[in-house]
């Protein structure tokens, strides 16, 4: 059987973290009462006009720069038409002809090898980033034959990030999305929490034999977590392979991921293909961005965006942060990945390192093995940890000064988890876990043990 090459591309919609919407002044807020954050424009009241939100443009520029894109100094807005209950105007304002950023790349890390201890760096090309409006939400109430429409989300700014089909499996897709998520959160351009719908991923999947052209692709939607993304992609790859090997064909269709069944199912078919009748948005002039060179003299700083100014103020991206951690603390690259992967963990680690004499290379073990596994077991975030960085540092100091053994330290830690407010020293004293350094005392204890076990000792001596 000839080998199959799976090809995976992604379309990611990230909700922009901003106070107000992309083209109107209504507030952006998760889980507000239905239809409480809807301006006249959002409701498509006749005569209202879009006004571009500066913060949203800055977010897109930041993201474009972080993903190594070319920022288009002139980009355009278009209308994409279709009728749906959650789209009040009957069209979405998007950037179809000329988006704000193009031709970037994202590097992400994969753990490979037996024991998953080797890091490999992969790259995926970013085709483009475009600004567009989010739609509202509609809920179908079949029992009452009605559709409930909530427009709170209608008009919220989105960045659509299109990743070229450079990935080959669920794991790569998941890792790429995870890295994008970290970047967005670091920039602050999106909070990118998938559970709150701030990051939505659609996967484009196809398979083909080496040397042959790409196969027909399907689009997979309704993926609600990174874990499900990997599952959905892998399932779809498998499904396509099986279908083709059984002599079937792949339809160019949209499928939904069913997380309960762990499979993809065809979505309700819309008769024929949609023609979105794209048209330039006549109410928005072209979006012009400047850099230090092209910025005209005497411009009102309020009215223009300077790409270079934004570039200078970009924070350290995750990849840079990881390198710094490895360099500064001598930890392994895979450790740096884990540190950044958990919200607040890197800060916790650094805090502990500051407060203890123990070498960072040893501290990392306690962070990744003990602290992290405990948190995972109890589904706690780092910031919810009952053991603060100072407490852990105190404990590690005791260990470092050889006042306790590492076994004892683990027992103290177990006690500290209870969060009863005791210090490590107090626990050590309570449970008499001190390491005895005194020779005489040790002899006395040993003698006492032997004395208490006379019969066993005699048996041992007799052989």
């Amino acid at each position: 059987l000839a080998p199959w090459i799976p090809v995976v591309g992604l379309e990611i919609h990230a909700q922009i973290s901003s106070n107000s919407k992309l083209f109107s002044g209504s507030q952006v807020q998760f889980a507000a009462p239905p239809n409480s954050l809807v301006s006249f424009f959002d409701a498509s009241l006749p005569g209202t006009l879009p006004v571009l939100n500066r913060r949203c443009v800055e977010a897109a520029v930041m993201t474009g720069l972080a993903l190594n894109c070319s920022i288009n100094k002139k980009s355009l807005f278009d209308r994409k038409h279709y009728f749906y209950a959650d789209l009040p105007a009957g069209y979405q304002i998007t950037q179809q002809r000329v988006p704000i950023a193009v031709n970037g790349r994202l590097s992400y890390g994969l753990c490979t090898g037996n024991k998953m201890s080797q890091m490999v760096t992969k790259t995926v090309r970013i085709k483009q980033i475009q600004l567009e409006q989010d739609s509202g939400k509609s809920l179908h109430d079949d029992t009452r034959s009605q559709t409930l429409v909530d427009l709170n989300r209608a008009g919220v700014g989105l960045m659509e990030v299109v990743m070229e089909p450079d990935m080959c499996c669920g794991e790569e897709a998941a890792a790429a999305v995870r890295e994008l998520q970290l970047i967005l959160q670091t920039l602050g351009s999106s909070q990118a929490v998938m559970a709150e719908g701030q990051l939505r991923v659609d996967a484009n999947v196809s398979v083909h034999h080496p040397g042959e052209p790409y196969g027909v692709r399907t689009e997979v939607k309704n993926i609600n977590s990174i874990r499900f993304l990997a599952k959905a992609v892998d399932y779809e790859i498998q499904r396509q392979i099986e279908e083709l090997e059984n002599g079937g064909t792949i339809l160019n269709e949209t499928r939904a991921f069913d997380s309960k069944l762990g499979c993809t199912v065809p979505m309700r078919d819309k008769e024929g293909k949609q023609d979105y009748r794209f048209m330039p948005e006549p109410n928005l002039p072209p979006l012009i961005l400047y850099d230090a060179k092209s910025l005209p003299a005497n411009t009102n700083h309020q009215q223009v965006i300077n790409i270079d100014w934004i570039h200078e103020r970009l924070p350290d991206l995750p990849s840079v942060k990881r390198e710094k951690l490895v360099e500064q603390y001598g930890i392994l690259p895979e450790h740096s990945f884990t540190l950044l992967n958990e919200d607040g963990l890197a800060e916790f680690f650094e805090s502990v390192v500051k407060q203890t004499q123990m070498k960072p290379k040893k501290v990392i073990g306690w962070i990744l093995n003990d602290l992290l596994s405990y948190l995972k077991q109890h589904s706690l975030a780092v910031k919810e940890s009952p053991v603060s960085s100072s407490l852990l540092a105190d404990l590690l100091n005791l260990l470092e000064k050889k006042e306790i053994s590492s076994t004892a330290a683990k027992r103290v830690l177990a006690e500290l988890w209870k969060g009863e407010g005791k210090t490590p020293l107090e626990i050590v004293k309570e449970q008499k876990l001190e390491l005895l350094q005194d020779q005489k005392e040790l002899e006395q204890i040993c003698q006492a043990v032997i004395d208490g076990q006379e019969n066993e000792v005699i048996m041992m001596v007799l052989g």
Partner: protein
Amino acid sequence: AALKQGLRSQVSAALKEGRVTPTELCQRCLALIRSTKFLNAYITVAEETALKQAEESEERYKRGQPLGILDGIPIAVKDNFNTTGIETTCASNMLKGYISPYNATVVQKLLDRGAVLLGKTNLDEFAMGSGSTDGVFGPVRNPWSYSKQYKEKCVPESHSENEESNWVITGGSSGGSAAAVSSFTCFAALGSDTGGSTRNPAAHCGVVGLKPTYGLISRHGLIPLVNSMDVPGILTRCVDDAAVLLGSLAGHDPKDSTTIQDDFKPFELPNLTDVSKLSIGIPKEYHAPGLSSEILTLWSKAADLFRNAGAKVVEVSLPHTRYSIVCYHVLCTAEVASNMARFDGLEYGHRSDMKDSTESMYAATRREGFNDVVRGRILSGNYFLLKQNYEKYFVKAQKVRRLIANDFVKVFRSGVDILLTPTTLSDAALYTEFIQEDNRTRSAQDDVLTQAANMAGLPAINVPTALSERGLPVGLQFIGRSFQEKQLLTVAKWFEKQVQFPVIQLEEVKRHDSGVFQHQKSASFS
């Protein structure tokens, strides 16, 4: 009586001096509206709020603190502008009963200056049409149909028959606004102009109709027909008044991203006496098929007028004029299809009782809410926007639009200051004749002289010039350079002074007149 200051300024002076109060003025206008109801110029008369505004204005005058020239002045607004708390229908079933929750920027500006909003005027449904005959509230009748001047010229028949079948249209689509100003029920009115919708009815109703440069006046709150061509239009009885309105309305609006950022300085129109430095262009393509010989003669006489006064008058060419109607048709219908997509019955406006599915509800709502004209344009527009047609039609039309605009650029660059053209092909048609042809045909015919200015975004103005043989108004159009309204209006004012267009002689107005609506003795032009 001096035409120097304009009627509005005279009224303004009268208000200031207490010779008439805002409430008296308001009441007289409301009474006149009632007695000219047969014109069907108003869809909604906001009697209560208008009187309240008038009272507030009166208070300000008493305190000696009027807000300005417009304080207490009754105005009317075309029913496609949003007005808070007042029904805004666009003369369509789709928006019957729709109460706007906000004011269009232009409406707000007028109210902020103390203007008294009498009501919303009638139009073609969603501003689609050139007759003001295709709205759900019925056609608007041209006040000149009832003028002494027209009746005198009519073939004598039984009196009542005359009235019923002899009336002429106002032109459109801002016919209600034009009729309202023409019949003295208000001192100024807002219209809209996408292909000539302010200038056309202005010409037929014998009033000044100004289309400002695109981007000068905010469109926020104007329910759009073609976003890239629409402008709020100004209808007044004299050019000076148009300048005052323009001064109150123009300027950047942060709510409308297509308005220019530059500061706008309101101006007073100088009294031009010397036109020798002026260069007037006569575009030969505007000698369009169907242009009546009457108007041709008038146009020629006007050119002579300028020439004899020392101006340079040259023939120019705008070679792409003949493509503008087709180009307009493609671009207009495409934008209409897009702009009308929001009318689905879900959030506001008419909603059908059809409940089988969301889609069937949409379809039924739109079929019930829109008239044939609107539906026709939506279908055409969607056709042109289909992927397989987009390049062939929409993009092609955009390119032709650029050529049309460039024609004007070239001509203005060659030293011409202002273009002089006819506004309409003939005087106002009888309603019974007008409706013999469908809306699309009529629009295509009637827009020919006005619509290129919308393509190019240029300012243009209709100045009432003379009465036709039928005793009906005929106007001529001046087209100016972008954002050069001051020059345009200055020339228009000079021309207005030369032609001394006669005042309409309406029975109803005579009855209500008590000196405020002054009659001028003016030599007729023709």
